[in-house]
């Protein structure tokens, strides 16, 4: 079931009524759990068995890990949980990809091997709920958290429908404590939750699906080169589309959960106003980047084992982060590019930091000079702080957009073709996008950048509080009217395929 569907609207209204009836807390939790299973089963009922398997195995594995004091059995139990979770993920998500590359590898050394193409359907949300259950087992193993004694609370933590299929990727401490005591949305939470749901649907249905998707699909869908303007517009369209699609889903999820009285963690914080790539990853898919930091980058050694290892760890984390998105070399390249940009940024910071320190040592009498030197090392011309930051944010967005080419293109050749068109190396392709397409993409891009920039150090709830109530209503009304005008759009969210 997708949030942008009539079936979800009916489901949500019935669930809200049920959740607000004077029933015991345990009954309400059972209702939520059954509703979550229904929410998932309406896609493809058999895949619910995988969810049950993962839930049951991790619940009992974590219990046994917690009771066991001897290191080896603890490791063995953790391994069982990891093998099950990562095994399922690998089979369903990477089975075909591994087989295809294995075949290519054999043929490259002259061994003719023709494997039957596996017909594997990817269960919706498997990458997300696998990370949710993994974080629980790993936290219990590290004794960061105690195992949850209630199976109902644990099953609801894994299956809770707002985050189940596309995040935010919750941690045990985010949700389990909330399930332990009765929760019901206050009227403020309910109205704010409904506002967030409207905003998320507006981002998905109006902006991503109606204003941007067709331009991105057109440019990335043709097998021939296009004009540079079209290539840029296609990439900018996808850049806006992927943000509005994914952040729209997260905003819906947070809003829906708030209407039920539960708070989910933020997943996006105006990423297109990020200054640099480390800032970008603090703002984009936050729950994934923190998951990768806590369960991959830090266990690899993080930045504690010297400079070279830090760069290697960064690259490993980003390459695997790219591969998490899908079984394709393009996702690996996307992750690799982000890794390279993060490493480059770190190098620049170290270099400018050293220069700053050595310059400050020589010019202790003039601290103002040190500041201007630091600025000059980032941007070649002397600019004031805000202006310089905006320029750096645009530069970051430009580089992020270049990485999106690999994320969206169906294969490496197509990605390179788009990049060459963008750079004007192939200038003579046909014009594809109409005036209306260009107007839609450029308007949305400008508004998106402006909103992100103006909101980069703020939050929606703060803005909602500061704004006059009638203005808030005007914006809300505008979004809902556009949503109604757009009419039904039951397009799946892009991140469901991951």
């Amino acid at each position: 079931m997708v949030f942008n569907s009539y079936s979800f609207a009916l489901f949500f209204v019935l669930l809200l009524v049920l959740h607000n009836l004077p029933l015991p807390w345990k009954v309400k939790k059972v209702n939520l759990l059954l509703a979550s299973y229904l929410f998932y089963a309406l896609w493809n009922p058999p895949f619910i068995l995988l969810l049950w398997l993962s839930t049951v195995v991790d619940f009992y594995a974590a219990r046994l890990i917690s009771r066991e004091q001897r290191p080896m059995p603890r490791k063995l139990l953790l391994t069982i949980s990891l093998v099950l979770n990562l095994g399922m993920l690998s089979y369903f998500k990477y089975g075909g990809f591994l087989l295809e590359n294995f075949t290519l590898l054999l043929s490259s050394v002259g061994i003719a091997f023709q494997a039957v193409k596996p017909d594997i359907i990817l269960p919706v949300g498997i990458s997300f709920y696998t990370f949710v259950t993994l974080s629980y087992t790993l936290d219990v193993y590290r004794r960061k958290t105690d195992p949850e004694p209630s199976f109902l609370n644990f099953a609801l933590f894994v299956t809770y429908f707002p985050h189940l299929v596309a995040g935010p990727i919750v941690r045990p401490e985010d949700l389990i404590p909330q399930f332990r005591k009765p929760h019901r949305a206050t009227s403020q939470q309910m109205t704010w939750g409904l506002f967030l749901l409207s905003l998320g649907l507006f981002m998905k249905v109006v902006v991503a699906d109606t204003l941007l998707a067709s331009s991105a699909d057109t440019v990335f869908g043709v097998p021939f080169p296009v004009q540079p303007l079209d290539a840029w517009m296609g990439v900018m369209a996808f850049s806006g589309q992927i943000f509005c699609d994914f952040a729209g889903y997260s905003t819906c999820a947070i809003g829906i959960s708030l209407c039920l009285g539960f708070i989910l963690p933020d997943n996006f914080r105006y990423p297109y106003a990020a200054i640099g790539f480390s800032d970008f990853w603090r703002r984009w898919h936050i729950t994934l980047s923190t998951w990768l930091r806590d369960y991959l980058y830090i266990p690899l050694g993080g930045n504690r084992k010297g400079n070279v290892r830090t760069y290697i760890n960064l690259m490993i984390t980003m390459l695997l982060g790219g591969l998490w998105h899908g079984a394709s070399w393009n996702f690996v390249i996307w992750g690799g590019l982000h890794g390279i940009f993060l490493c480059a940024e770190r190098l620049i910071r170290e270099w400018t930091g050293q220069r700053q320190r050595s310059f400050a040592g020589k010019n202790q009498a003039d601290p103002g000079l040190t500041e201007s030197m630091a600025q000059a090392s980032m941007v070649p011309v002397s600019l004031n702080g805000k202006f310089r930051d905006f320029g750096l944010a645009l530069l970051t967005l430009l580089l992020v957009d270049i990485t999106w080419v690999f994320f969206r293109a169906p294969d490496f050749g197509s990605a390179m073709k788009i990049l060459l068109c963008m750079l004007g190396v192939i200038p003579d392709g046909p014009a594809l996008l109409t005036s209306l397409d260009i107007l839609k993409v450029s308007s949305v891009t400008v508004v998106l950048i402006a909103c992100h920039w103006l909101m980069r150090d703020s939050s929606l709830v703060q803005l909602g509080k500061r704004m006059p109530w009638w203005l808030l209503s005007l914006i809300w009304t505008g979004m809902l009217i556009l949503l109604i005008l757009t009419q039904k759009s039951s397009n799946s969210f892009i991140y469901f395929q991951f």
Partner: protein
Amino acid sequence: MHMNHFSKASVLTLISVLTFVIGWELYWRSQHLALSYNDDESLWAHTRKEIYQTSPSRPVLIGSSRVKFDLDLAAWQRVTGEKPVQLALVGTSPRPLLNDLANDPNFKGTVIIDVTEGLFFTPDGSFPEREATKRVEFYPKWSLSQQLSFHINHLLEDHLYFLDEERLSLQPLLTDLPIPPRPDTWGGPKFPKEFSVTRFDRQNVMTDAMVADTSIQNQVKAMWLEIGSHSPKQGVDGPLLTAILNSVKQSVDRIRARGGKVIFVRMPSDGPFREAEKMGYPREKYWDRLLAHTQTAGIHFEDYPVLSKYQCPEWSHLAPKDAITFTEDFIPILQQKTGWPINVNGAKVPATTASLSTHQ
């Protein structure tokens, strides 16, 4: 957070949105537009479910827009007692649908294939072929959730005019904006809103305004000319045409092997549209060759005075009133041509203008 603040905002929002919806609905009702259903993938999938209870009296119709306008399903039902299953898709090639029926081992029914040469004889991967393939691929993925949404949507569509995605949603409204075109680009045809509506059984009918107003008809004619200027002037030829014919024959043979029945039909067109079709797709090279290659019977409107007596208001489709009599005349011809056991309630078989070889 002040409770008053958000509560006041939500109440005002609710009132404003409800006011807008009522006003928007009343506005479109005042524009004399008839109620139309979204001819989307869910409506197609819903109709596709019915193909297993077909018979010569209740055939499956596949093709492009002409069979959707020209065969009146209610008239067919009056004559035979049963209503056909309308699976044709506007602006697409029926070949992916034919292939889909051929690949379905449970389908053993009767198929009437509408041939609009410019769409039928398009190669794999072309726009008309891709669009039809999308529907075929959607059907097995039509989830329970989407089915539930479809039924809820149907309840709303029954009563609300503005729920018309094709004509009145944000996308077509934006397309209506007077924005100067970018040189060397084409955003696709823009048909007037009054052109036609889609019924829940997927039949298309021209609106009363379209039938009555020649200026609207001229707008549609202008669209055909525009589409023509962006389409190849000559049809596919050589090995590509042979490959298309082979794939059609393969599908037809598979349906017949299971006891199914197939016939091709060529619906009326006239004026410059027909002239362009004759130039680009000469009958002997395409229509006749299709029947001969697949060894299948066909009904070409030009062979029957009762089928060729009509004038299409916009050169390509029949007006609703004409579609009724066309259908009433078509059924006995179909029965005579094929010998299929169609329940015809007293309809007379009209005379033919040409004696065609029957390949069945």
